[in-house]
């Protein structure tokens, strides 16, 4: 079964399936695939000292696909030999479950690591997804970045982190 490179889903994530699908696609392109960098974000048990019971993630799905297109194009422009895939989970997640899975393939490790790090930084900046945390004693929406896909300063920050 083919694995889409970009996905918002209520099903559990598998970074292994994403990575192997990207590797298979990159194997015979250009120099071939020499490395895979992956990142898996998981639900942490605490937030600022409070005990997390579970989380709910909500997405604006059609806009998320547009954000993925932008991130994909940015990565292709910066690291032409790298390929990336991003899967984000929505719905209710328990502590320890994967909320985001990212895999980046490239001919060499440097580009794979950079593309992977850039992808998670951009997810945090622009992906229209919202986290609602539930604690033993209440709940709260988490408010991160004001999403602006055209903000060059944000792109530069993500690139600097990726290349540090």
């Amino acid at each position, binding site marked *: 079964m083919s694995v889409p490179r970009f996905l918002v889903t209520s099903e559990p994530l598998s970074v292994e399936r994403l990575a192997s699908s990207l590797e298979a696609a990159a194997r015979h392109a250009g120099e071939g695939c020499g490395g895979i960098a992956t990142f898996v*974000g998981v639900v942490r048990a605490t937030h600022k000292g409070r005990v997390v019971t579970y989380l709910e*993630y*909500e*997405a*604006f799905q*059609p*806009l998320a696909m*547009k*954000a993925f297109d*932008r991130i994909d194009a940015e990565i292709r422009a910066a690291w032409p030999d790298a390929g990336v895939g991003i899967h*984000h989970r929505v719905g209710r997640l328990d502590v320890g479950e994967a*909320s*985001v899975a990212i895999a980046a393939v490239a001919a060499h490790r440097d580009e794979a690591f950079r593309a992977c790090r850039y992808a*998670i930084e951009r*997810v*945090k*900046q*622009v*992906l*229209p*997804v*919202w*986290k*609602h945390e539930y604690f033993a004693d209440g709940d709260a*929406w*988490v*408010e*991160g*970045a*004001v*999403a*602006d*896909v*055209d903000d060059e300063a944000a792109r530069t920050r993500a690139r600097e982190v990726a290349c540090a």
Partner: protein
Amino acid sequence: MRVTVQVFARLRELAGRSEWPCDVQSGATIAEVWQQSAAAYPALTAFTTAVSCARNEDFARMTATVQDGDVIAFLPPVSGG
């Protein structure tokens, strides 16, 4: 003319609904749609400096002009990952 406003996450909770029609003058911008929405649902006002937007399911600027029938989405700060 009339556009449809959609809101997500905290904005939806503050407004108490996820979508509503909004009548605006011809030539109105997305920023004007927001101002009208915040007037109708004052709890949204706190987000005036932290809201981003989409028009017909693609990213847009608050300065963009809306057309009759557009679906305008307002997004609170994102927190994916």
